């Protein structure tokens, strides 16, 4: 068993069997087995015509023929690639500098920045998208009206109804996600190399370009792959800004196919697209795996003691503060104001005297309180359980992949990454079918929170493993080797060496998965019933039916409840010394 870890047991340990490696492999197998089961159902769906479960179901290749011979498929994919690339560029361009400022400089107000960054995920995407419509739409955009009046223009100069503007907006939405993924790596990085570069006379930008960025490469690659793939699946911005201009991306196309006005949802077509996306994701996973093979080069957490070097910003402090503030105003304050505005109105309208006269608290009063409470409780349970299980499984998978020599260990990482490529709603259908037709007589989870937990954990495994992979790559094996020489078992090494060193990344990942769980829209669509209704689906229901006021009111209530919890979370994390908030 210990051979899997590639090391001989220390003499003191020989009498005890070391069960930890088997346990870790077992956890990795269960987690990736769940992924495999759901993927298998998606694959099966791509070959069938009709309602799953129906005895009259027929097997066909028509979905594949339709997909490959329809030029619209390629247009949708091209749009999605452009959208995703733009989103990725903007997200990384904003996130990496902010992460560096927070983790490696004396930038002030770090708990506030971390709280605001995490709060960003609590602002529903529809509010962000509608906010930009009200600002920049050619017909009703306030900024356009103002520019036309001031400069006497006959046409609106700005427009968000194009793929690049949509991508940029999505990029701003995804900045917090990229921030969290890169901040954790920056936090864990030994600054010895940077100090050596500085001692050798390198300028700060040279150090950043030649030392910091290359060392951060695995974490940046993980963030880039993850953010790009999230961009592929982004729904709110393409639905509100793109659909009205007939710009379809993958997510809006999938939604359109799965919610037809006539006939049954075309699960087969979407599953077929999902198989194509899985193939693309498999290529990305392969590229990522190749980068991982260089892992030892990026191990910067070594046995030598170190303290992260905090750079003094000096005169650059004010521009840095203004830059970060500008980001928060544009990317977060405006959507938040939009959310407040929508919550106070009976129906959505641009700011005007007439709109101000209609302002009231009716949307808050009219909220279904019992339902809100039930959904809020379910969401609280999901937010506690899903990240915990996900990270438990992620650590196990990363450890097996990066710290053992068992054959085919790469398959675990490969499988853990793939859920990212499958539209959440398709996963949801697959989970529904498994719960109804496979698990029903064994573990009846349909209609319970467990089915949501299962699907959420599987869907978040890709994110969890990117975070734990990145963090584990940075930890040099010499620390574990030292512990083993001192007689520690694998469990002891994990508990006393790896977990404390992984803790900053796990803390970031935990809160982030909790927030992603909070705002998950598509996964509950098919599997949520009265017994497991989550808060996000309640809000999404309001949005779907144009009840923006109630959706905004409910979101603000949750935001008000979550904000102090988030602040407390970061303060506790700082006190425990897990995150750098000096």
């Amino acid at each position, binding site marked *: 068993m210990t051979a899997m870890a590639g090391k001989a047991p220390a003499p003191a340990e020989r009498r005890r069997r070391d069960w930890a490696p088997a346990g870790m492999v077992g956890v990795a197998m269960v987690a990736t087995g769940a992924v495999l089961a759901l993927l298998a159902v998606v694959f099966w769906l791509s070959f069938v015509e009709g309602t799953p*479960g*129906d005895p009259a179901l027929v097997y066909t290749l028509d979905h594949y023929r339709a997909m490959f011979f329809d030029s619209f498929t390629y247009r949708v994919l091209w749009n999605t690639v452009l959208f995703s690339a733009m989103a990725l560029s903007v997200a990384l361009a904003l996130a990496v500098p902010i992460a560096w400022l927070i983790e490696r400089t004396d930038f002030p107000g770090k708990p506030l920045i971390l709280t605001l960054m995490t709060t960003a995920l609590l602002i529903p995407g529809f509010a962000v998208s509608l906010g930009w419509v009200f600002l920049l739409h050619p017909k009703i955009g306030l900024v356009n009206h103002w520019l036309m009046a001031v400069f006497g223009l006959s046409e609106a100069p700005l427009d968000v109804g194009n793929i690049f503007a949509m991508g940029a907006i999505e990029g701003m939405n995804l900045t917090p996600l990229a921030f969290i993924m890169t901040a954790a790596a920056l936090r864990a990085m030994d600054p010895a190399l940077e100090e050596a570069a500085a001692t050798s006379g390198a300028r700060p930008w040279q150090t950043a370009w030649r030392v910091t960025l290359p060392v951060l490469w695995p974490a940046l690659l993980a963030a880039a792959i993850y953010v790009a793939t999230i961009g592929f699946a982004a729904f709110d911005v393409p639905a509100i800004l793109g659909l009205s201009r*007939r710009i379809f991306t993958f997510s809006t196309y999938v939604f359109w196919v799965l919610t037809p006005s006539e006939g049954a949802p075309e699960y087969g077509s979407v599953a077929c697209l999902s198989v194509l996306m899985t193939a693309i994701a498999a290529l990305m996973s392969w590229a990522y795996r190749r980068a991982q093979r260089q892992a030892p080069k990026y191990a910067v957490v070594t046995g030598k003691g170190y303290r992260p070097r905090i750079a003094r910003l000096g005169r650059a402090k004010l521009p840095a503060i203004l830059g970060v503030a500008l980001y928060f105003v544009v990317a977060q304050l405006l959507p938040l104001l939009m959310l407040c505005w929508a919550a106070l109105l009976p129906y959505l309208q641009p700011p005007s005297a007439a709109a101000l006269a209609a302002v009231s608290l009716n949307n808050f009063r009219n909220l279904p309180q019992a339902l809100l409470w039930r959904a809020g409780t379910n969401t609280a349970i999901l937010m506690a359980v899903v990240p915990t299980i996900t990270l438990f499984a992620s650590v196990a998978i990363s450890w097996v992949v990066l710290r053992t020599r068992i054959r085919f260990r790469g398959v675990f990482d490969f499988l853990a990454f793939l859920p990212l490529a499958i539209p959440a709603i398709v996963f949801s259908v697959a989970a529904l079918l498994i719960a109804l037709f496979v698990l029903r007589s064994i573990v009846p989870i*349909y209609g319970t929170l467990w089915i949501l937990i299962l699907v959420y954990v599987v869907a978040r495994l890709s994110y969890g493993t990117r975070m734990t992979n990145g963090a584990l790559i940075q930890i040099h094996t010499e620390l574990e080797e030292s512990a083993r020489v001192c007689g520690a078992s694998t469990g002891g090494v994990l508990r006393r060496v790896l977990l404390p060193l992984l803790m900053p990344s796990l803390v970031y990942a935990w809160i982030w998965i909790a927030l992603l769980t909070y705002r998950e829209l598509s996964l509950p669509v098919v599997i949520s019933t*009265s017994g497991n209704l989550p808060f996000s689906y309640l809000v999404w*229901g309001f949005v779907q039916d144009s009840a923006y006021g109630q959706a905004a009111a409910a979101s603000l209530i949750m935001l008000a409840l979550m904000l102090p919890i988030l602040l407390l979370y970061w303060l506790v994390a700082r006190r425990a010394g897990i995150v750098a908030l000096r």
Partner: protein
Amino acid sequence: MMFRLAALVCLSSAFAIGAAQAATVPMTPELAKVVKAAEAEGTISLRSTNTVFAGPEGAKFAQDAINKTFGTHLTVAWTPGPAYGPLAAILYQEKLAGQKSSTDVYTTTAVQMTPYLDKDLFRVVDWAKLMPSRINPDMVEAEGRALRFQTVLPGILYNRKAAPWVSSIETTADLLKPELKGKFYTTPFLAGFDVLLANDVWGVPKTEDFVRRLSPQLAGLAGCEATDRIASGEIPALVVDCSGGAVNRLKYRGKGILANHVIRDMAQKREDYLAIPVNAPHPNAAILYTLYVMTHEGQERMVYDLFGDDLYDFPDSHIHREADALAAKGIKFIDVTFDWWRAHPGLDKANAALAKLVRQR
């Protein structure tokens, strides 16, 4: 035998006393049995999008009204769910798996329900016998599986201020005028255009030719839920809205912001139905819910005030007056019922193929 008869009389009397408080529903022996069984079930579970059943507000109203009308103590619990089509697929999968259905009452149109009629998904109920004073056999369709409860008139849903030109639209040909290019939107699934595809209306070639010429005229696409965006002026007009904006237009009723305009050559009355899944956990309570919807009070205070439009079959209904006023102007409606839909097979697939034309810019 005598004992059973006496018990039935007592039971009927007991429920009649409760019902007498509302005095709107004559208590037949059949109805009394349903009321008793519903009381034992205790709950009505509803699952739908927010606008269907009027969401939580509709559930609260229904609970109070049903209990008052039938003298029961039922709880009406509503949960958000997917749209008509996806929900029907889930209900069917639940049935195949031997699971109780996740909703006691399913509301839909003939389009979404027809594929499941031969799959024994919905319960056959003798609706007319349960409430003969309000339900006539014509309202009962699909061999007793579906009960008509609401009629909608799809048309152009528009912002009166941003699209005043809509009132001048007489026929679909008017939409092709060059001056209207880029001034209106349609749905990604071409809602309402399916009726044109019928051979006894336009047929596929003519409809396809029209949609090809319509596509360049469009400013873009929007779902039927985009009512707020129409009200804000971002989307001036939606040609055509799924339901004449009946449900989504509710909060704008009487405010002079939005209006629905029926186009003469694609005028259609679309019927909405209530059905009860065979595996409903509370079938008798579901029947009571459905029966309440058909009462005069249910039509006025729940269907019209909360769902958007009432049922054309009732001569005193709002939609009856509206449709008759349009008919007096020479507009002829296609009544999209189960019989009509079944008489025109393949329209859903043809319409889906047609919708691809409007996706392209």
